[in-house]
């Protein structure tokens, strides 16, 4: 259980090459296509990594909160993917440089816009930075507590940590909902600050949870394929499929509810945001969203056979992840105008995916593949559906 697979230097070098090529492309993009497209890509990919990491930190805390056993043998996977949070924090801090480029409320004209003047107590640079730093500190503290504590437990076998982790789970939930809402409002809907939707924080939360489950399932399946989780059977990831199915429906429900209410009320200041995103050249992108995030995973996962099959789970969760990327692209890029996708986007994708995989690879080197010190591990391995 504690054996480490031989770590291939080739994979690491390939990832480094990815980062180098992507970084070069990104720098060229900044110089040639201009800073706004560069920063839009930067924010998109930073949020992609951040939501995957936060989603997995949330899954770790959720297991503690509800006292689940079935997920304990797989918990090292979300703990390792949560290491994307400490990667995304400095990336978000760098993204502060792009805020004056992309965010209209930082521009001089905002002083003449009555809506933005009314929102100025929230949307101003000092408070924006304070919120970001507060969120980052909260994430990093909880990351240290949950992931670092769990790693320490491997050797210490200290059952008291399991009790403490459960006690801190409710405050984590409160922190999580506040910070995800702040990220949604600050970094996404702030791009078009005249728009408002109370549900938007929940929408990003639904996407975060859904893609968190999807990337966790991908990690579990990848480790099973490499033979590193010999004791994890279909009965364990079956539950990930069930959760994924439920949150596919939840995500679609929140997304549709937000759309339908705004469509019905037809208020000009709200509806223009959607009008821009579902008409004209954005229409095909908008149609990809329900396809990848709802229809494909829903119908693949609804039967019990689908959730048992590693192949079906792989396709369904991959579709959810593609849907999450399309979602963020569809939320952020319409501020630039018509859909653009070319070499700048591909280089940024290489850069950030390379960074993300390198970070997860580093996290893979720490601790066993299963939380061997957790007193609930035996119960989790013996768990019967």
């Amino acid at each position, binding site marked *: 259980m504690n054996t480490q697979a031989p770590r291939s230097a080739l994979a690491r070098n390939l990832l480094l090459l990815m980062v180098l090529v992507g970084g070069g492309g990104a720098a060229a993009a900044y110089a040639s296509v201009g800073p706004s497209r560069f920063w839009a890509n930067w924010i998109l990919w930073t949020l992609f990594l951040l939501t995957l990491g936060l989603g997995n930190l949330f899954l770790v805390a959720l297991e503690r909160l509800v006292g689940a056993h079935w997920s304990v043998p797989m918990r090292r996977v979300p703990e390792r993917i949560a290491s994307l949070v400490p990667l995304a924090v400095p990336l978000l801090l760098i993204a502060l440089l792009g805020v004056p480029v992309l965010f209209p409320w930082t521009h001089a004209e905002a002083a003449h816009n009555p809506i933005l003047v009314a929102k100025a107590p929230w949307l101003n640079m000092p408070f924006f930075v304070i919120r970001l730093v507060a969120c980052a500190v909260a994430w990093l503290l909880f990351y240290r507590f949950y992931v670092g504590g769990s790693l320490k437990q491997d050797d210490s076998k200290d059952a008291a940590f399991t009790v403490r982790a459960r006690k801190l789970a409710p405050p984590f939930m409160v922190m999580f909902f506040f910070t995800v809402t702040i990220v949604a409002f600050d970094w996404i809907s702030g791009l078009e600050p005249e728009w408002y939707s109370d549900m938007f924080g929940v929408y990003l939360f639904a996407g975060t949870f859904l893609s968190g489950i999807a990337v966790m399932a991908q990690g579990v399946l990848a480790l099973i394929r490499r033979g590193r989780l010999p004791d994890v059977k279909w009965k364990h990831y079956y539950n990930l499929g069930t959760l994924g199915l439920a949150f596919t429906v939840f995500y679609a429900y929140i997304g549709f509810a937000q759309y*339908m209410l705004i*469509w*019905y009320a*037809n208020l000009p200041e709200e509806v223009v945001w959607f009008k821009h995103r579902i008409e004209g050249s954005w229409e095909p992108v908008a149609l990809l969203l329900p396809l990848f995030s709802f229809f494909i995973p829903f119908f693949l996962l*609804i*039967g019990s056979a689908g959730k048992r099959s590693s192949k079906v789970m792989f396709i369904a969760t991959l579709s959810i992840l593609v849907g999450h990327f399309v979602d963020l692209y569809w939320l952020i890029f319409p501020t630039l105008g018509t859909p653009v996708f070319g070499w700048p986007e591909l280089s940024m994708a290489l850069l950030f995916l390379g960074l993300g995989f390198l970070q997860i690879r580093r996290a893979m080197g720490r601790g066993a593949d299963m939380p061997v010190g957790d007193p609930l591990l035996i119960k989790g391995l013996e768990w019967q559906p």
Partner: protein
Amino acid sequence: MSDGAPAGTFAVVGLFSEPQAIVDAATKIRSKKLGRLEAYSPYPVHGLDHAIGLGKSRLGALVLGMGVLGASLALLFEWWTSAVDYKLITGGKPLFSWQAFIPVMFEVTVLFATFTAGLAMLFAFNKLPFFGHPILQAKAIKDITRDKLALSIESAGADFDPEKARQALVEHGAESVEVLPIPSWGKSLTLVGLLRTIAAIAAACLVAGFGIYVAEKMVPVVPPMFRIHDQPKLNAFHASSFFPDGRGMRPAVTGTVARGHLPVEFKTPEEAGKLLVNPLPLTDRTAERGRKVYTDHCAVCHGVVGSGVSLLSSAYGAKPANLIADSARAQPDGYLYGVIMLGKNAMPSYAPDLDEADRWSAVHYVRILQRSQNAKDEDLR
């Protein structure tokens, strides 16, 4: 229940203590094909469903199918009601607004799916109503509902041999074996029993209803929610303390115009004849509407054909205008409209009784009467 099994045996039941023992026994006995296998257990046992040969339940597929059917029916119905049968534009949206239909589709999907799941499970797959399962008469039932597991070989035809079944159960480790006879049905299904049940339900309804009546009328506690006339509300013709002027009805805002009663810009019918043209096209509908307006309001004095002769006019000694005379035929549409609006001689204004479309339709109908009384040759062709 059974179809002539020897000695009237319903099933042979064997008791087991260990979950693994019953699973092993069921697997082996199943291959002997002695009869239908059924298992009773106080807690779920993994693998027992496969061991007694239960296939994959068809309930899931049925529920999915009915859910899809519900969604389609809801969509079809919403499309037909709002885009075909009763086209009503709501909030400036298209007639077929799928966004607004989805909540109803969702609800109907859930309704169909849950009802199918519940009812199909109870009636199609679990074969209810089924009064008094024979296992309830067995001595083993006490143990089954406590901590033992039972494997039952049910009679599945004329070749069922209770003795062979008994031997197979003993051979595969059953702790005790019991032969269940086909039960004699109790008295619950007799006519008297059914009538008693119905009478008991009726009596319960009567008692409950009387109790509510007494509680509502005679016990002066908090008034129940369903006295809808007690709620605070505005009555148009009653005093109310809600508004400062103490009236329930709001006075109309200055300059309010009722639908179809736009103020007129003329003082005499002659002026109207110069100002106005009939805005309504002459169609079957306007002609029919004009006929109705004329018959209800005009014919009583001007006569059914418009000749100015009627029973009522002779009784009152008035002389209503002859609408089919040349003088009336020469007047423009606007003049006739002006007379309806302002009245003439003894005729009062009909403006309050008729709305704008009624008046212009009546003008059309008067023209039709004039033409019918002065028909030309080509009208007959």
